[in-house]
C-alpha cells in the first residue's frame, strides 16, 4: 500500500497538468462549434476541397458535421491522440523511472517482491488514468451541454468518451512493456510522441475502410467513432483485440521485470 500511495503522490502533479491540457483543448474545440453550426454551408464547402483521405484522417463526415455528435467525432480524434500520449508517457516512465532517477537501489532492496512493486505501480497509474477520464468526461459533458444547439444522444456521447479510457489503457500497457525491454530510457516524452504518432499516422494512411484488417495494427483504429454513433455499440472483435493487447503486454511486463538485472548507476 505504501508504494501505491507514494506513486499516486508522485503522479499527482503531472496528471493534473494533463487533465488541464485536455480541458483546454476541449474548450478551444467546443468554442468554435457555434460558428460552425451558424456557417454550416461554408464549412462543408471548405472541407469538400480536401482529398477524401485527409477527411478520413480527421474523421470528418460531411453529412453530420454540424450535429454535436458529428462535430465531436471529429474533435475526439485529437483528444484521443492527446490522451494516448499521456498514457504512453505514463506507461514508459512508471517502471523505468527508478532506473532513470537512480532510485532502484533504494526501492528494489526493500523487503517487497518485484511483482508487488510492478502491481502497485501499475495500479497507481491506472488509478490516475481513471481519474483523468472521470474529470475529462465531466469537462466535455459540461462543454457539450453549454454549446449544444439541439438535443443529442447523451448515451452515445459517453460511449465515445469511454473509448478514451480504452485507448489509454492500451497505450499505457504498450508503454510499460516497451519500457522493460529498453535498457535505459533517458528521456520519455520524445519516445512516447514518436510511438504514438507512428500508430496515429499508420492508422490514417494505411487503413482503407472499416473492413480493412489493417485496423488491427493500430489501437487508434480499434474504436471507429462513426460506427459507435451509428450503432450505439462497440465493435466486439476490436474490443477483444484491445483487451488482448493489454493482457499480453502486462503479462510480459511482469515476466521481464521480475527477472531483470538492475545494474549499478554509472
Amino acid at each position, binding site marked *: 500500500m505504501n508504494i501505491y500511495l507514494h506513486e499516486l503522490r508522485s503522479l499527482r502533479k503531472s496528471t493534473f497538468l494533463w487533465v488541464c491540457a485536455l480541458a483546454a483543448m476541449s474548450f478551444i474545440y467546443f468554442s468554435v462549434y457555434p460558428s460552425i453550426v451558424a456557417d454550416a454551408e461554408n464549412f462543408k464547402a471548405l472541407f469538400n476541397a480536401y482529398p477524401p483521405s485527409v477527411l478520413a484522417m480527421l474523421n470528418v463526415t460531411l453529412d453530420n458535421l454540424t450535429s454535436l455528435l458529428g462535430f465531436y467525432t471529429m474533435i475526439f480524434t485529437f483528444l484521443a491522440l492527446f490522451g494516448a500520449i499521456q498514457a504512453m508517457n505514463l506507461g514508459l516512465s512508471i517502471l523505468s523511472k527508478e532506473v532513470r532517477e*537512480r532510485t*532502484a537501489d*533504494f526501492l528494489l*532492496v*526493500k*523487503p517487497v517482491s518485484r511483482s*508487488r512493486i510492478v502491481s502497485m505501480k501499475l495500479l497507481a497509474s491506472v488509478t490516475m488514468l481513471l481519474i483523468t477520464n472521470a474529470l475529462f468526461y465531466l469537462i466535455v459533458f459540461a462543454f457539450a451541454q453549454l454549446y449544444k444547439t439541439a438535443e443529442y444522444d447523451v448515451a452515445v456521447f459517453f460511449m465515445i468518451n469511454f473509448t478514451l479510457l480504452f485507448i489509454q489503457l492500451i497505450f499505457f500497457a504498450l508503454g510499460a512493456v516497451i519500457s522493460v525491454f529498453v535498457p535505459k530510457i533517458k528521456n520519455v516524452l520524445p519516445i512516447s510522441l514518436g510511438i504514438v504518432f507512428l500508430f496515429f499516422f499508420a492508422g490514417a494512411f494505411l487503413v482503407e475502410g472499416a473492413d480493412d484488417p489493417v485496423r488491427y495494427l493500430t489501437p487508434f483504429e480499434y474504436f471507429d467513432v462513426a460506427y459507435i454513433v451509428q450503432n450505439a455499440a462497440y465493435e466486439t472483435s476490436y474490443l477483444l483485440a484491445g483487451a488482448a493487447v493489454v493482457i499480453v503486454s502486462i503479462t510480459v511486463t511482469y515476466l521481464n521485470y521480475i527477472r531483470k*538485472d538492475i545494474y*549499478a*548507476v554509472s
Partner: protein
Amino acid sequence: MNVIEINDLTKTYGKARGISNVSLNIEEGEIFGFIGPNGAGKSTTLRTLLGLIYPTSGSAKIFGKSCAEYPQVRRELGYLPSEVFYYDKMRVIDLLNYSASFYKKDCTKRMRELAEIMELDLKKKIDDLSYGNKKKVGIVQGLLHEPKLILLDEPTGGLDPLMQQRFFELIGEENKKGATIFFSSHILSEVQRLCTRVGLIKEGRLIKLEKMSALQQSSYKRISIKTDALESPERLKMEGVSDFNVNGSDVNFIYKGAINDMIKRIGELNIRDLSITEPDLEEIFLHYYAKES
C-alpha cells in the same frame, strides 16, 4: 551461524567482466572487509547478494535464503549504495518515513537518533542537499530499521573526515549490538581499522581470505633508504626481501624477517636517510598472495 553464504557464484554479462566462482561465508557478528580495485567485481557480488541482479550460476544467500526468491529476508538488511540517489522532490523526513514504511515496525526513534548523530536536517528537500548530505540520508535510511545485516558499498565517499569518524563509530556500535557488517571498499585504511576479516577480489575472483589479526601479525616492513650512489645496494638483497627497487640513490623494498639482521646490514652502508613503515594491505596482498593464486 552464517549470515552470508556465497557459493560458487558466477555472473557474466556481455563484454563487461563479472565475477567467477566466488565462494564466501560470513558469520554472525563479523565485520568483513571486501577489498579490490574498481571494477574487480565487488558491486556485482553485492548486487547479486541483494537480489538486484541474478547469478549466472551458483548462489548468494543472506540468512540462508536468496533475496530474489524470498524478498522478505531483506527486512533484516540495511544497504548503503556507493552512489546515493533519492526521489529529489521529497523532503528528507518523507523519504525516511517512506523507507521506514517497508519495515513493519516503528522506526521513528532510531531515525531521529541517527539524524542527530549524522547532523542531518530532516526538513530539507533532497534536491537541495549536497552530495555529502545525501550520503547521510543514505546512512540513516540504511540503518533506521536496526538491521541485523548491513551491506556497505564504498560508504565513505563524500563524507568529511569528522562524519567518516562518526559513521565508523556508528557501524562499530551496530556491530556490538550484534549486527553483521559487510563492507566493500577500495580504500584499505578504512578496512584495516574496522574489519575482523578481509577478502581480496581481483578481476572477478576472490583471491584471498584472511583474518585481520593474522595480517597484522605478519612482520612485513617496507624499507626505504637513501644512499650514496657509489655503493652497491644489492648487498641488502638478503632472504625475506621482495619488491626490490633501485632508483638512483633511492632503494625501496619489502622485508620479512628478523629486523635486527636487516638493521646490521643497512648499518654497513653509508646511508643518508632511512624509513621503515608498515606496508598497507594492498602491498601485502598484491605482492604475496596474488602470486600464490
